[in-house]
């Protein structure tokens, strides 16, 4: 491997350009190999090397001069009925990833395999047919409901548009769904502005579920709510998952919430997945230093237990100008010279437990 040859020299000199070239080449090769692999039949959602860039500078002719890489090279599999929790700091690309998977943003690269079909290149028209299968719940329950429609209209509109049930049964179907989501039948005629945050979020959930989706992307559904209401909404989501056999992609920055609801957890940093695995593996044996730092910040209920907090220095770097080498090296307490120049590979360290860190490779 090109990377190793450089490293084997007696005096370690990092030629950034050569390393990046080799890294890119290798990435392309793995991408190509991965793209040709058959789709996993068990997985409801499989994401391969997903990438999303936004242009931030354009020349007069409309050519992109500088890009912001919001989501870079993310791969994971999610089986039906499972919940994948995505955690990470603000601005690390969690929401962009969720929306790109739903094709609310057109991905810049990679594959999104949903229910055995690669939807990454579907046109808007093709997407319309499978929109009912994948839905989204938003963070802000105040701006995600149209202010001039009644609750009944909001929930029944998608049912009518997609013809989920015959027209004469729509109302009873909607009322039934509202009941499931903890909304009273007389809310049907009311307007969103009459409700509190938690109830609005229930309306959002009912709207998302009205089209009988398989996958629901929950984009920080509880972070705008009180802690007490958070618990209610999370429990509602859990019970609905059981009764309707839903698969969740649960995005949150709150680790305790993610721990409660998820089966699998992915940790994101600066647009990349740094660690991915089953909940138990991640919480019991976090591999990546970033995950360790995150988990050390979970508040401890027992005041006698001393917390060993790993305090990260500095701010999250700008995704418009990401650091060379390992993205995390600017804040990593264990960073070595190698980390500053060579991007680490995202590898499976234990079964189903992936991480991207040089320190792990050396062990």
């Amino acid at each position, binding site marked *: 491997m090109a990377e190793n040859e450089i490293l084997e020299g007696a005096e370690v000199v990092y030629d950034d350009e050569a390393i990046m070239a080799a890294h890119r080449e290798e990435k392309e090769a793995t991408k190509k190999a991965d793209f040709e692999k058959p789709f996993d039949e068990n997985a409801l959602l499989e994401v391969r090397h997903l990438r999303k860039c936004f242009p931030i500078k354009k020349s007069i002719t409309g050519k992109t001069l500088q890009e912001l890489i919001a989501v870079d090279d993310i791969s994971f599999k999610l089986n039906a009925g499972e919940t994948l929790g995505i955690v990470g700091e603000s601005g690390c690309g969690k929401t962009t990833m969720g929306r790109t998977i*739903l094709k609310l943003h057109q991905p810049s690269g990679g594959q999104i395999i949903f229910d055995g079909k690669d939807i990454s290149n579907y046109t808007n028209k093709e997407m319309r047919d499978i929109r009912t299968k994948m*839905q989204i719940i938003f963070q802000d329950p105040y701006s*995600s409901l149209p202010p001039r429609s009644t609750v009944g209209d909001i929930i029944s509109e998608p049912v009518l548009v997609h013809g989920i049930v015959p027209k004469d049964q729509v109302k009873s179907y909607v009322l039934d769904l509202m009941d499931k989501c903890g909304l009273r039948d007389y809310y049907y005629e*009311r*307007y969103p502005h009459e409700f509190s945050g938690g109830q609005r979020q229930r309306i959002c959930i009912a709207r998302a579920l009205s089209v009988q989706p398989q996958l629901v992307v929950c984009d920080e559904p509880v972070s705008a709510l009180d802690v007490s209401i958070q618990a209610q909404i999370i429990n509602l989501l859990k019970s609905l998952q059981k009764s309707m056999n839903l698969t969740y992609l649960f995005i949150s920055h709150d680790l*305790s919430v993610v721990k409660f609801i998820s089966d699998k957890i992915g940790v994101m940093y600066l647009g990349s997945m740094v660690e991915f695995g089953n909940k138990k593996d991640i919480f019991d044996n976090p591999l990546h230093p970033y995950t360790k730092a995150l988990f050390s910040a979970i508040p401890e*209920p027992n005041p006698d237990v001393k917390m060993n907090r790993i305090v990260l220095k500095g701010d999250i770097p700008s995704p418009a100008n990401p650091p060379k080498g390992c993205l995390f090296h600017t804040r990593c307490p264990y960073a070595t010279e190698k980390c500053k120049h060579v991007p680490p590979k995202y590898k499976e360290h234990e079964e189903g437990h992936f991480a991207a860190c040089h320190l792990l490779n050396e062990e």
Partner: protein
Amino acid sequence: MEDRNIPMNEENTEAVLVDAVNEETLTEAPDVEVEKAEAAVTEQLETESEDTEVPLDKNVRLMSPMQMVIRRFFRSKLSIVGLVMIVSLFLFSFFGPLVYTRWGEIELDESGTVSYTPNEIVITNPDGTTTTIYQTTERQEKDNYLAPPSKDHILGTDEQGYDVFTRLMYGGRISLSVSFIAVFVITVLGVILGGIAGYFGGVVDNVIMRICDVLMCLPGIPILLIISTLLEAAQVDAKYRIYWLMIYLTLFSWPGTARLVRGQILSLREQEYMVAAEAMGYSTSRKIFKHLVPNVMPQLIVQMTLSLGSMILYEATLSYLNMGVKAPYAAWGTMINVISTNTDILQNNFNVWGAPGICIVIAVLGFNFIGDGLRDALDPKSRR
């Protein structure tokens, strides 16, 4: 912060004390039973929820946004005054001529008057004596012009002998209908073009907005004068000239509305409920007409009401400058026009030119009061 950790622990099924009040709150929410089974611990958290999650009382009938707007509109005295002004003007102009049929719009009062002018002619005779000749001139007028207000003519007659009151009603018809048509066309054009520009963005947006910029640069009155001359040359019927001019005015006035709509749509389409609509797979037309346009309506209605006032002023200006409705047909502006050539009327016959002037003021004021009232009523931030 500490109890945030509690829901994580699924195995923790220890009984938790829940006070009576809390129990009540819980049983009100239908999903609570599931929750209980799921994680007993979270119930503890829900003790804090009494205030925030108490379901709305079934008997409390809350108002729809529309009802709220209407209520807030009628709370303001000024908007009621405006509404009364406009409604009475409408009744006056459109139903007045049906009720008051004494005179027609272009019906001259030919009753005339017999006026006797006494004359004294003093002749000095050669012998120094004077002879005084008393002479009375009897003049029979055909038209009863510039008659003062009387039983027959409520507001008198103008210099031609037309009934001012009747012409006021017919003039109101022209002014109001012309401005309504113009504003309607402006709004339709503005919504369509501004909506397209705002929703699709990119090149389309650029093209439409540059057209707006160009149209806003053109000087209004000089071009109106040219068009008016052209209409004269083309011998367009005096009755329809004003409509031609208003067509021109609409073509040059839509950019304001288009900009407003575009700005609104730009901000609205970033709202999460539009993303939700996208995620629901709604068609573009549904997204625009069911989700975006209804939310632009408030600002649009205000804009429309306010521009009704300015259109009336435009119409009056055009007619005054003899470019709009021409004699013998009546318009408020045309009626005032008489004073431009005859200063006697300006001095002595306030009823001839003052009445249409007051009508214009009432109309413009009324529309502005309504517009202001609507603006306050439709602003969701001004509660009550």
